[in-house]
């Protein structure tokens, strides 16, 4: 039994060290990507197309819906408490800083983490990765770095669009339930939209983008040989991405309030 526990701990430590080494390789490869990644640029552009452009309508719709719901439910409630002006800070807090980045990250995880991990897993089981190595292409530089940068940029941009849609939608809804001038609405918003809020929101989206792409590619490469392993790594990539998104969100939120 002790031998089994020792073996388990040893393997866990080995995997953690491997994961850190893997993250280090991704970061160094990403730094030099634009200077020497000519054949990989197409993968970066395609990643932006799949993760950012194709997800944009969904993210905007979710943003519009969430912004409207917060205003429609929150405004009458706060008004009954005599705190209607708090609605602006509540909206900025939920849409731009707290719920928005997490929701965008979950949408990207559901769409792209699964796609990336199964694609890479399929490439491993079909020996395509070995084939890259045999011609002198570094799989991390060629396959992972463009996906890492593409997914990170996509989550960052989608988060901006989400915030924009989420904060803009109530300006139209407000005309139905509590007609006020557009200027007054936006003035209320901008007074609560601080640099700190914007920076925290941007930081969260960048970190979440990193987490999604690292988890997706890491689990993709964990396929050993059978094609039956591919859907399993897809599930693991999505689950672990969500877990690490929540953990990193808690850490960033806690640090940002100190």
């Amino acid at each position, binding site marked *: 039994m002790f031998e089994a526990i020792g073996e388990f701990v040893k393997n866990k430590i080995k995997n953690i060290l491997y994961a850190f080494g893997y993250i280090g390789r991704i970061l160094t490869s990403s730094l030099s990507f634009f200077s020497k990644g*000519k*054949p990989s640029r197409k993968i970066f552009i395609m990643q932006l197309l799949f993760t950012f452009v194709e997800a944009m309508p969904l993210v905007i719709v979710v943003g519009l819906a969430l912004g409207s719901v917060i205003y429609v439910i929150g405004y009458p409630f706060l008004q009954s408490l005599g705190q209607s002006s708090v609605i602006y800070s509540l909206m900025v807090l939920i849409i731009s800083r707290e719920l928005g980045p997490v929701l965008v990250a979950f949408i990207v995880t559901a769409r792209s983490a699964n796609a990336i991990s199964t*694609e890479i897993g*399929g*490439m491993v089981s*079909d*020996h*395509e990765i*070995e*084939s*890259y*190595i*045999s*011609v*002198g*292409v*570094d799989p991390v530089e060629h396959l992972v770095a463009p996906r890492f940068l593409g997914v990170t940029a996509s989550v960052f941009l989608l988060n901006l669009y989400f915030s924009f849609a989420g904060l803009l939608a109530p300006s139209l809804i407000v005309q139905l339930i509590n007609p006020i001038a557009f200027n007054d609405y936006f003035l209320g918003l901008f007074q609560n939209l601080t640099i700190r809020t914007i920076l925290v929101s941007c930081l969260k989206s960048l970190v979440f983008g990193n987490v999604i792409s690292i988890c997706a590619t890491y689990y993709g490469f964990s396929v*050993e040989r059978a094609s039956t392993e591919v859907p399993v790594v897809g599930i693991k990539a999505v689950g672990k991405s969500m877990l690490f998104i929540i953990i990193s969100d808690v850490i960033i939120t806690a640090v940002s309030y100190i």
Partner: protein
Amino acid sequence: MSLFEMKNVTFTSRKFEVVDHVSLMIAKGSVTEFHGPSGGGKSTLLKMLAGIIIPVEGNVFYKSKDINLMSRQEDLVFRKECAFVFQDSALWANQTIIQNILLPVQIHYPKITKEKQIEKVKKICDIVCYNKDMNLRPADLSAGEQKKIAFARALVCEPSVLFLDECTASLDDNASNNFIRILHEFMKEGNTIIYISHSEKFRWEFSGNLYEVKNGNVELQSIDIDDLR
């Protein structure tokens, strides 16, 4: 001096020893065959020699340099000089035929113009007798045609060592004869071939050092051409 040297190499997969403390040498300009039953570790051995998989124990040397400790620049030179044709072709499914052959050219000849890179690709496609649309995907081709593209991808950067893992499997007689002709020309230039094949015809054409691989162990055997005839 040997071109390749394996020293006490072991490879384990899921606690099974696929290759067990193997040492061997391969000379420049020679033909070497790994022969043996399926699952005996031939492909693993070939991939370790080609630096595609890393041994758990031991070292593999190419021109006296440990291939797993090469710098990025040395590795690029090694990859240009040593090409590999996979048993299942292993073409990149999400890329077109031209992109499959062009990528090694872009990696190893980054300074030549795009037109010249494409010219190289077209020339090698003529040599392997591939005359279909270059913008098809591997899935649009038969297994034999995929093999031709895999062969073209291996030859496009003019390597001096060819690793062939069942390279004539799934080929018709014409294509197989064409491959053999190309490989004879390749050999005439003093290049090295290291292969696995279950085809008697192929073994007859390219007889050389024969290593029997069984249960992860390797034994050098003498080959009698008359037996093959």
